[in-house]
């Protein structure tokens, strides 16, 4: 499963790159991806509240944090959206933040679908 997955580099995840970053420890990478999925709900809820309340510093901080963990796991599209979210917070651009919030949710769903398909995470 992991060998097939390693060959698949798409806009969602560069698995090969992430695996190399973890020193080739596929089990550990899988554990980290599961942690990321668990934490994402928390980050998403907080950033949603921040967007609703026009709390730009919070939008920027959560965007920055999410960007960091997404990049560590080579979650390409999510790290790009998070980086844009950080900028939207800095620029105090609420319409951009609202648009990105929706993109974040959709892209996370796409990631989950992909990861379940390749059996990297278990279906709930």
């Amino acid at each position: 499963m992991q060998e097939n997955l390693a060959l698949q580099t798409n806009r969602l995840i560069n698995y090969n790159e992430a695996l190399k970053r973890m020193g080739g420890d596929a089990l550990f990478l899988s554990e980290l991806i599961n942690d990321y999925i668990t934490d994402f709900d928390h980050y998403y809820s907080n950033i949603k509240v921040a967007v609703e309340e026009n709390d730009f510093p919070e939008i920027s901080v959560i965007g920055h944090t999410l960007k960091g963990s997404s990049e560590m796991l080579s979650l390409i599209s999510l790290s790009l959206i998070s980086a844009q979210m950080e900028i939207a917070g800095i620029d105090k651009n609420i319409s951009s933040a609202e648009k990105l919030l929706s993109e974040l949710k959709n892209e996370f769903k796409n990631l989950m679908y992909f990861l379940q398909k390749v059996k990297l995470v278990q279906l709930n």
Partner: protein
Amino acid sequence: MINLLIAEDDRVTKKIIEKTMKECGYNVFCAADGEEAYRILENNNIQIAILDWMLPGIEGIELSRRIRSDKEKNYTYIILLTAKKNQADMIDGFSAGVDDYITKPFNTHDLKARIKTGERIIELQSQLIESQNRLREQATHDGLTKLLNRNAILEIIEVEYARALRNEIPMGMIMIDIDHFKRINDTYGHQTGDDILQEVALRLKNGIRPYDSIGRYGGEEFLIVLPNCSMNEIYKVAERLRLQISGEKFRTRTKLINASISMGVLVAQYPFDKPLDSLINVIDKALYEAKGNGRNCWVSVMPSDNNNIGGENAGKFSFANKQVN
């Protein structure tokens, strides 16, 4: 084992670093925010710190400034971890005192290699501290007896004298000389003489109060300073020291030898308007008075004489105790 702190609020990144550092054999502490990280830094000897720039509470860069402002603590090698990638941020990081700067996403092999550099710096720093301590020890202590040397004990006396003046409290001094030490050296040899010196030093050190200081003043002379010490108290100390030396024979490399000491005892009472040199001169004379009185005894300068030391009463020592073997 090296103590290493990871200050990172993102669970994924923290877990990656923690696993990597544990594999390297470090004793790892973790903090999820700046306040927690600061508490860990305050209460533990953290040698390497990996700090995320953007932490809740105190940011990593501010933690770095705080670490660097505390000059008392051992050196902490700081690696700043951040997703900030521009040159200005990097310059800010180094200006705050960080040693290395790693941008996210990082590779665990890269992190390990950089940590090794930190380890080398920490190792060099401990060697430097060790060397400084050894030099300080050599500069302030007598090599044979391991007591403070003449300069060091005189410096302490100066400090205590100033403190006694400031706080209007008495200060005691005892000058000690080993009786017939030349005869011991001539009869049994200098190595045996050294054995006696070492054992006398040990017994004297064990006989003083924890907050008193003792130093080797000359060949077989010792000087003790007793801060905030009354006359009654110094008499007890002097008598205890005398008994500790004469009460038990000295086991040397040649044979069991009897030894004794003579002492000059003085308590300077506030207000003491005489310079420290005069006090040392007077106590020296009291010591020779004790020698003249048959040795293995102590002679004190009475408090009433203190204001006149060095003057016409300088020779009026009171014979306080005498005990001959």
